[in-house]
């Protein structure tokens, strides 16, 4: 293990710096300055970033009545998405998506499935993840980024 060869570094995208800003719009302009949704103003922890969001048929039916970001979020939720995926795909700050998703949920346009809080303490969930991960095949190492 005491190899003389130095560990080759790098091989990773710069993930803390040098990124483009995702949106030229100041993030919370879209939420009229609010940092919490309509449901729970300032109370309790924010909904988890992996929370799944799905458009309702009612939401999809009235898609065109919404302004751009709201419309984009509903349209992107034709299939279940996590809040994190929504934020990344629509280039919005995570907390902006939290606020808008909660508003749209209150209006019946989205279903927001907050995961149950104790999944990490659930042995059956852990076993399912372990068993599922074990089926992931090996790969030949290849660099995705230089």
């Amino acid at each position, binding site marked *: 293990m005491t190899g003389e060869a130095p560990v080759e570094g790098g*091989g*990773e995208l710069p*993930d803390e710096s040098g990124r483009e800003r995702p949106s030229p719009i100041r993030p919370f302009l879209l939420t009229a300055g609010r940092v919490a949704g309509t449901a729970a103003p300032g109370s309790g922890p924010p909904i988890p970033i*992996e929370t*799944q969001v799905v458009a309702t048929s009612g939401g*999809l039916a009235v898609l065109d009545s919404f302004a751009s970001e709201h419309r984009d979020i509903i349209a992107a939720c034709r299939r279940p998405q996590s809040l994190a995926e929504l934020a990344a795909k629509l280039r919005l700050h995570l907390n902006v998506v939290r606020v808008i998703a909660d508003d749209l949920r209150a209006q019946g346009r989205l279903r927001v499935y907050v995961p149950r809080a104790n999944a*990490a303490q659930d042995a059956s969930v852990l076993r399912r993840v372990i068993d599922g991960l074990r089926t*992931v095949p090996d790969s030949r*190492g290849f660099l995705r980024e230089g």
Partner: protein
Amino acid sequence: MKADPPGTVAAHEQDMLQQPPLPVKMVIAGGFGVGKTTTVASISEIEPLTTEASITTVAAGVDDLSHTPEKTTTTVAMDFGCITIDPTLKLYLFGTPGQERFGFMWDDIVEGALGGLVIVDTRRLDDCYAAVDYFENRDIPFAVALNAFDGKVDYELDQVRWALDVSDHVPVTVFDARERGSVRDTLLVVLELALERVERAQARTGTRY
């Protein structure tokens, strides 16, 4: 990559069909440029996505007079990917933004995580202290993984364990962030640790699932 949903699905059927999976997550931590994104990319079924999130940084030990750490909310870029375990269960991997000179609070990202992985570059051990401290203080199951691209690292695992001062129950392992199998096995180390803990806790309280 998945195809878009078929456009033929009627709206009323769609509500029935689109039952989302239970999402669970693990956190990939470590200093800047240590291989977090590579790790996520190696095993994720999608190209890693980047989103902006808020974290709270705590300026540590700067102002000794007040003893009040100054907390600042910072927007950082965060990379993540996912693995569909089955149609009802999806594992997300979140790469925490590195914050080397600050304490930080990732609670917003980490809350409810199954476990964490601290990736270490043995040439820059300092970069991972904050992550090790964080997981230890939050009592989140985690492992320390030395990223060795050529299968070698500069130090023995025991030396690294000693240098990082991690508890005996924390696994310290070597892996290759570019190898899917290596990433998979390293995540399994964390998950098995998490499962052991839950089972031990259940044995104590007599809970059965």
